[in-house]
């Protein structure tokens, strides 16, 4: 019970802080993965730089999708 009270007090600052870090890393993580996959595709099919460009665009959308899901989850839990 004590634990719950503590959590309630901490919630606003803690959630805000973790929220900011999570949004940035979700976007960054998706971009890092897509750049690596894009470079590998270019190496395999010798198609520089089409694979990289396509994967970066896809990766950006994947990052946005991650952020969308994160925000939806937080909104649902409220």
């Amino acid at each position, binding site marked *: 019970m004590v*634990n719950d009270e503590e959590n309630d007090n901490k919630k606003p600052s*803690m959630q805000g*802080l*973790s929220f900011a*870090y*999570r949004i940035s*890393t*979700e976007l*960054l*993580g*998706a971009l*890092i*993965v*897509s750049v690596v*996959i894009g470079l590998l595709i270019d190496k395999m099919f010798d198609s520089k730089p089409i694979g990289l460009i396509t*994967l970066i665009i*896809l*990766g950006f*959308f*994947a*990052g946005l*999708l*991650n952020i969308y899901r994160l925000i939806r989850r937080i909104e649902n839990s409220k």
Partner: protein
Amino acid sequence: MAKGESPLKQFEIQPIVDINFLGFDISFTNSALWMTITTAFILIFFTVPFLKAKKTNSVSDLYPTRMQVAAELGFNFINSLLADTVGKEGKKYFPLVFTLFMFILFGNLFGMIPYSFTFTSHIIVTLALAMGVFIFVTVLGFVKHGLKFFSFFVIPGLPVYMLPLLIPIEIISYLSRPISLSVRLFANMLAGHTLLKVFAGFVSALGFFGILPLVFIIALTGLEILIAFLQAYVFAILTCLYINDALHLH
């Protein structure tokens, strides 16, 4: 910073015992030392209070000791976290989440001791942890659902002509999980400890007015301890969510 010591020097890995095994450098470093200390401390923290309670058999046994309360607080915290995110089936995965949470939490907290070493500030450590979670969750998904696990990448109720575009996006989004999980922990620790060292440099450089950055450092230390808890919590809750995804698919 009288001698111009870099604020990044604290992250340097120094071998304590040089070990060379089949051409691989597996020296016992300061990073490994602090991991060992963390693990040993967790083992002591969770066995000692319960060992004592068994030995004696008096009325005072009914009242838990302070250490026991602290240990049970951590236990209940992860227990309720799993119950909230995964549900009843989550009980099975309690050891995994609990071990991860405690290891990261005490790793972060021991890093706050002056002259210690924060092993969570190295991406190789956090990435290894995150990859472990990622591989576990993927294997779990395949074991539970077989090939149906691939339907995880298809959003239900979507027109067919959108699938060629959205399946790659879903796959990238799935693969980015370990990266974002590890980068978040590593970047928080690295940035926080570098900031502390930079402001510590200002204290000696400013002479009398060094008291201003000193006050700031005190506040920053409190914030860093909060972040140590927060990042361990975020790592644990995301592990729970990924387990939930693997078990229930959407």
